[in-house]
């Protein structure tokens, strides 16, 4: 279980509070209007933002851990790949941060690239790939890192509807194989309905407790109704 206990983040005028518990081995959608604090919540989990309160993963506090030592892999909206490194190198960083890969590790990279549908693209630079393919490469790296928690910060927001759906399904498929715990930030309700078992609604600086996706949309709160616009 991932527990956020009495989290408070203050950045200038902005203030975000969260006191929530999330089940592991499932997907939780973080839904809400832009500027509400969805991304801030994720960056706090990844260790990039100072906060009060504490975060527990399987009962252990994450507070003192550096970003690289936390049990999380994070995918951003952009800048997930280093533009001057090849796809193989970018993915290989997930295994060895100094890129001194053994033959066995290189084979693992190849397998991961196959899994996300990028077979044969290893030697390319990121700029030679489409936006969707770049995010697939970032996904391959997350796959190799074997971290139990995946944080996805609207990584498919820039893609067209068909491609976004395809990517979400791929992510969910691989997540289920790995038994990972996935937190997906999105402002699209249909993304949440498609792959999330629970939803955390974040608006006006507050993260509401997680609710099962079905009841969440079946009996919308007034804030949710205002957000959905009906």
């Amino acid at each position, binding site marked *: 279980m991932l527990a956020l206990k009495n989290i408070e983040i203050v950045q200038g005028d902005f203030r975000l509070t969260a006191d929530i518990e999330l089940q592991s081995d499932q997907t939780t959608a973080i839904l809400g209007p832009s500027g509400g604090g969805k991304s801030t919540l994720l*960056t706090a989990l*990844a*260790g*990039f*933002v*100072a*906060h009060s309160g504490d975060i527990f993963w399987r009962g252990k506090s994450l*507070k*003192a*851990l*550096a*970003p*690289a*030592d936390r049990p*999380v*892999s*994070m995918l*951003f909206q952009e*800048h*997930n790949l*280093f*533009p*001057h*490194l090849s796809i193989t*190198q970018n993915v290989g*960083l*997930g295994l060895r*941060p*100094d*890129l001194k890969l053994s033959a066995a590790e290189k084979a693992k990279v190849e397998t991961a690239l196959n899994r996300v549908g990028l077979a044969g693209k290893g030697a390319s630079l990121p700029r030679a790939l489409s936006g969707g393919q770049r995010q697939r490469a970032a996904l391959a790296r997350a796959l190799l*890192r074997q971290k139990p928690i995946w944080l996805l910060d609207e990584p498919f927001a820039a893609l067209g509807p068909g491609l976004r759906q395809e990517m979400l399904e791929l992510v969910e498929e691989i997540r289920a194989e790995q038994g990972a715990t996935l937190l997906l930030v999105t402002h699209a309700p249909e993304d949440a309905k498609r792959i999330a078992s629970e939803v955390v609604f974040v608006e006006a600086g507050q993260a509401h407790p997680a609710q099962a996706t079905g009841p969440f949309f079946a009996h919308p709160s007034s804030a949710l109704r205002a957000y959905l616009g009906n």
Partner: protein
Amino acid sequence: MGACAEPVIRLTKPLGIAALFVVAVLVLAPVLALISRAESGGVSAAVWPAIRFTLLQASLSALISVALAVPLAKALARRAFFGRGLMVSLLGAPFLLPSIVAVLGLLAIWGRSGVFSDMLAVVGLGPLDIYGLEGVLLAHVFFNLPLATRMLLQGWQAVPSEHYRLAAQLDLAPRAKFALFDMPVLRGAAPSALLVIFMLCMSSFAVVLALGGGPKASTIELAIYQALRFEFDLASAAQLAIVQLVVGLSAAALAFHFGKATRFGGGLGAPFQNWDTRRGPKLLDGAVLVLAALFVGLPLLAILAKGLAGLGALPSGLWGAFTVSLGVAAASTLLALGLSLVLARLIETSRRGGAIELFTLLLLATSPFVIGTGLFIIINPFASPFALALPITALVNAALALPLMLRIIRPALSRVRQDYGRLAEGLGLSGWARFRLLTFPQIRPELGFATGLAAALSMGDLGVITLFAPPDVQTLPLLMYRLMGSYQMEAAAGVGLVLVASSFGLFYLFDKGGRGAGA
């Protein structure tokens, strides 16, 4: 950032602090040495003319350069024409041109037997004589008009072209347009341009050495040179250096107060779409551009022409001087590169980064001559400063290049950190691996550009070397100066061309190398 968010700093921090220590020693030790040697009591009467002339020529140089740069930058900003890119590149050339070579080119155009004197002789007018204040101003405007133009041009290009579109649509009167666009640009860029040029001219030695001189046109630095070199009067040299330091620091403090970001170089990209089709301003802009191109271009052409003619008269000491110059440039560039990399990193990560950056700018305010004189006094009791001419020159050149390199490298480091810092930290990319895999490939263009600048400037420098060099030691610029001093102008022109080719070649090599595998 929380306690968990700081990146792992193992080796880089101690290295950065060591570099900071080196800079502190470079700034403070000479100053302390000067204070210990300078005679107490007031400034001697003989020094006043030098102080007056220094302030006069630096103020006039700054005023004239900026005043002329206003119409030129405006013309460049609002006209698109064939060769505009070339013109902007041409404006970059004087910054890299060794000053002693520039003097030769200027003399070929404006001197007693130069092009203009010949033309005046046809109508029976006497030859021009540019030695003294006129020559110093001419050379300083030649160097700094392009610099001022580039600084102002950046200001004008920062005005979004949509604003001009709106102004054209509303058919604003010229006065209104001036108040709306030009005044804010000038208020932002002109004070810092004036002060930067004032500071550069205050410590410009080679130009005054070649074109000034005599009691009427002697600067503080020239007086230091004479006191050390001819009278071996350490006490008055120290006193003069302190005067120079005080004036320099005052100008620097003013510059810091007025100047926001003053960037050198950088992208001067797409021209504005011009909506003003009236003929009067168009002709005026055209005239300004042609005159500016001639003013900057003719001396460059003269350097090339005279240099080619002088290649047959190259002196025997050329090869030796070339290798010495290259060695000094290599040593100073390596030192400056290493120092600026670790310092940039320290400034980036330290809480007191701003203060550290400000401190390194002190190097710019303490002129090379101040550092040189201080080092002379420190070394003198232990060893002959003349025997250490080359290492001292390399050290002082490195100190000069350091602030310039920092201004180029640090923003690049910031950018990498902003774009990829979190990704790298999330992946545990740190230390040497982070430098090798992320930082170096990303900042390579800036690194190449900065290294090229440092190498070219050191190659062409004729400054502290004149304080220390014994007769049998010479760099290329010193060889050229000595040839000019003995009126071997043809040989000097040949050496000048070799020197320009080496300076520009070094810059080209590093700049190109930096952009070679650009991401």
